[in-house]
C-alpha cells in the first residue's frame, strides 16, 4: 500500500469545505496558481471537474497533465486523493 502523506490524510479526513485547491494532495503552490488562474481556485471546483469526468482516474490525470502541466506523480496523487475523499464523503 502506498504510504499516504500528511496532506493526503488531512484532506481526506474531513469535508473539504472551502479549502484552497492547494490543500489537495499532489497540488503544490505552482500548480495551484496555474489552476487558480483558470478559475480552479478552490478544492471543490477541482472536485467538480473530477466528478464531471465520471471520477475516472486516468482521464482526470490526463486532463491535469495536459491542461496544467502537472507531473504524472502529482496527477496520480491528486486523483487518488479526490477519489478517497469521494469515497468517504460522497
Amino acid at each position, binding site marked *: 500500500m502506498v504510504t499516504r502523506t500528511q496532506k493526503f490524510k488531512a484532506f481526506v479526513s474531513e469535508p473539504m469545505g472551502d479549502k484552497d485547491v492547494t490543500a489537495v494532495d499532489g497540488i503544490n503552490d505552482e500548480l495551484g496558481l496555474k489552476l487558480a488562474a*483558470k*478559475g*480552479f481556485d478552490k478544492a471543490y*471546483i477541482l472536485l467538480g*471537474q473530477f466528478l*464531471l469526468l465520471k471520477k475516472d482516474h486516468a482521464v482526470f490525470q490526463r486532463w491535469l497533465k495536459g491542461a496544467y502541466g502537472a507531473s504524472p506523480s502529482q496527477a496520480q496523487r491528486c486523483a487518488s486523493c479526490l477519489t478517497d475523499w469521494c469515497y468517504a464523503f460522497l
Partner: protein
Amino acid sequence: MPEFLADPSVLTKEKLKSELIANNVSLPGGEQRKDVYVQLYLQHLTARNAPAALAQPDFSSDEEREPTPLGARSRGGAAPGRKATKKTDKPRLEEKDDLDVTELSNEDLQEQLVKYGVTPGPILATTRKIYEKKLQKMKEQGPELGSSTLLPTVSSSAENTKQNGNNDSDQYSDNEEDPKVEFRLEKREPLKAKTKTPVTLKQRRVVEHNQVVEKTLAEERRVERDILKEMFPYEVSTPTGISASCRRPIKGAAGRPIELSDFRMEESFSSKYVSKYVPLADDKPEKPVTKKRSIPMWIKILLFVVVSVFLFVVYQSMETNQGNPFSKYLGVPEAKIQAD
C-alpha cells in the same frame, strides 16, 4: 432612436444575419465573417436610417450616446470605416471586443467578466455558454447604470423596438428601470409624445420621472400593505403571509366520539385565526375532558359487567357443597345439568 443601429457591430453575427433577413437583404451564401454582415447591414439598413434619424434626436447605443442626429450620422459614417480596417484585436479591445461574445477565447471571456466584477469559475466547454450569456447581460446592464441620458433614448426607442424587435439592450434597460410597467405607462406617454423636444429638457424630465417613479413605488408598497392589513386584520403578519394553525382533530373519525359540543365549536372555527384559536384551544381541553378517553366508558362498564358475571359463574361451579346463598336462584339450572 432610429430604426436601425448606426453601429451594428454591437450585435452578434447571428443577430446581424437575422436583421438582414428580416429586412429582405440577401445574404451571401455560406458563413461569412462578421464584417461582411456588418457592411451589409450598414449599406442597406443604416441608409434607410437617414430620413428617420433627423426626426429623432437620439439613438440607442450601448457604447456612446450622440444627442444630435448629425453626430449620429457622422459616427455611423465613421464606424464602418473603422470596422472595415479592423483586422487585429487592438482596435476591438478599445471598444470592448466582447461585442460578439461567442468569438471570445476562454481567457478573454474570463477577463471581460472580471472587468464587470464577476469572478467566474473555470471556463470550459460546459461552462462557456453560461458565461457568455452572463457577459452579454453585464454589458447591457453596465452602460445603462452609467447615466440617465440613456433614458430618453430608451423611452423613445420603446416604440421602435416593438416595431423591429431588435436591440435587446433597450428592452433590458426598460426592464431595469421599471419593473412595474403597467403603472409607468401613463408616465411614459408624455415622454414618448415629446420626442422632438431638446435633449436637456428631456433629461430634466427624466430625472424627475425617476424620482417620481421611486416615490410612487414606495407609496404603492405602503398602500398594498395597508390594504392587506384591512382585509385580514387578524392575520399574523409573517414574511410570506402564511401562518400555520393547528389542525383540529376530525370528530367521528378514528373512533373519536361525536358530541354536540364539537358541533358548537365548529361554528366558531369557521376562520382559522391565530388569535381566536388560542382561547378556543383552552376551552377544548376542558369540555371534552370527560369524553377524551382512549376506551369509551360504556365499553368499560360492559366489560366490567361481563367479567363480574363470568366470575360469578365460576364461583358457582366451584362452590357446590357450601350453603350457597344463590342456590335458590340456581336450582333450575343445576337440575337441568343433572338431567343431562
